[in-house]
């Protein structure tokens, strides 16, 4: 039996729109582009994606894991000089979401990710302050 059946809102959603296959294609298309501007777009659109995709459809944990890996890859591909600009372009909610992903990335360190994430962390902290870290800890909706 499906796990999340508390809310019946899922009945009103067009599932085909959010088909798994479609999702993968969209992102791969985005990844093929190179250059910081394109990647920034992907980062921002990923954040939008996260908020738009209904949570009750994400029954599988692997959806989140894939999103995490994607975000860490995107963050790693930014040039150090551009990090500050990218953080500056996000609004308050965006900075909080970015912090959430940074800490998620810290949990599963791969060869180079920690160094890059620490750079992002420094810049995000300058903008968001300790309040954004507190919101990572207290948020009920995890990434």
């Amino acid at each position, binding site marked *: 039996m499906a796990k999340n059946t508390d809310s019946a809102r899922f009945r009103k959603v067009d599932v085909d729109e959010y088909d798994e296959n479609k999702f993968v294609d969209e992102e791969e298309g985005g990844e093929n582009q190179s250059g910081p501007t394109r990647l920034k777009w992907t980062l921002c659109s990923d954040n939008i994606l996260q908020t738009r995709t209904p949570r009750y459809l994400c029954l599988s944990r692997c959806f989140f894991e894939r999103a995490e890996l994607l975000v860490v890859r995107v963050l790693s591909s930014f040039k150090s000089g551009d990090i500050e600009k990218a953080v500056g372009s996000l609004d308050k909610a965006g900075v909080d979401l970015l912090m959430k992903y940074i800490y998620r990335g810290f949990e599963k360190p791969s060869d180079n990710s920690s160094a890059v994430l620490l750079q992002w962390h420094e810049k995000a902290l300058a903008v*968001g302050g300790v309040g954004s870290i*507190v*919101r990572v800890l207290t948020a009920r909706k995890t990434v």
Partner: protein
Amino acid sequence: MSLYSFGLEPLSCHTWNKDRSQIAVSPNNNVANIYEKKGKEWVKIHELTEHSGRITGIDWAPETNRIVTCASDRNAYVWTLKDGTWKPTLVLVRINRAASCVKWSPLENKFALGSGASIISVCYFEKENDWWLSKHIKKSIRSTVLSLDWHPNNILLAAGSADFNCRVFSAYIKDIEDKPGPTAWGAKMPFGEVLLEHKDCGGWVHSVSFSPSGDQLAWVAHNSSIGVSDATQGKEVTQLTTNYLPLLSVLYVSPSEIVAAGHDCCPIQFTYKGPGALEFVKKLDIPKQSSKTSMSAMQHFRNLDKRAIEEDSNELGTIHQNSITQLCVVAGEKAKVEKYSSVGLDGAMVMWDFKVLPCIPKK
């Protein structure tokens, strides 16, 4: 601003008497101490020792001169001054978990007590049997009630709790008072009625405060945010996330200015002008420009070498050296507070002056 240190123990709670010459504090144990101001010093004149558990809340009713204390031993006592000593009267609160906060109503004929049993106990004195009775508000509360504040009309009660919700209840007790008129929060107010339930404040709601008119309700939550609900605008909620550590106490000092303080050890001023217009104004503690005590060059480099530090100071730049747990009005009426006090985990009580900068009209 002036600082007075009551020792090294954290001060859990504090309250003032009517003319602010006496203060009742609890140093994080089961005893409440009353100090009187003698010149520049505070001298202990009474000790209230009846509780067996740590005192979590204390409130002094200025007109009737009664003190109510509540503790983690699931009890509350009302203290009255008889022949120069304070005599306790047990209140039957009927809770099976620790009490967390207590507040006298504006007319002082009843008080509200929040507890870990997800219950608010509204207690009033019954003359026939000469004891304090309580009525329970249980509706929709799902976790510890962390803070309470009364509306100026003596009927409505705001409660912030650990289930991430902020609520306004009616605490109308028909045995002791007349039916209230309608307010901006609602017209029908039977006991226990929920007039506002803001479901996701983002974190535990540490403190709530009504505005002087009672039309706005401010709260601070553990996700470092402050929120205001405006009853005159359809109970619309405006939330502001801050860049600081979570705030633990909030106080309305004028119809539009709010002071909040918490783990950052510094009171912060916010202003609320309408829905969507909740803004940070400034930090109210100007960190002292530390005049670095002249340190010899040898010592400076020794510090750098041994401890890798550049400054030889362990102190914070703020007056409070640890989190501020509670703010309280000292001077001025609720709509025009001139002085307020703060106590913190560092055992210090600081009195702050609040000045509203006059609006200079633009030519």
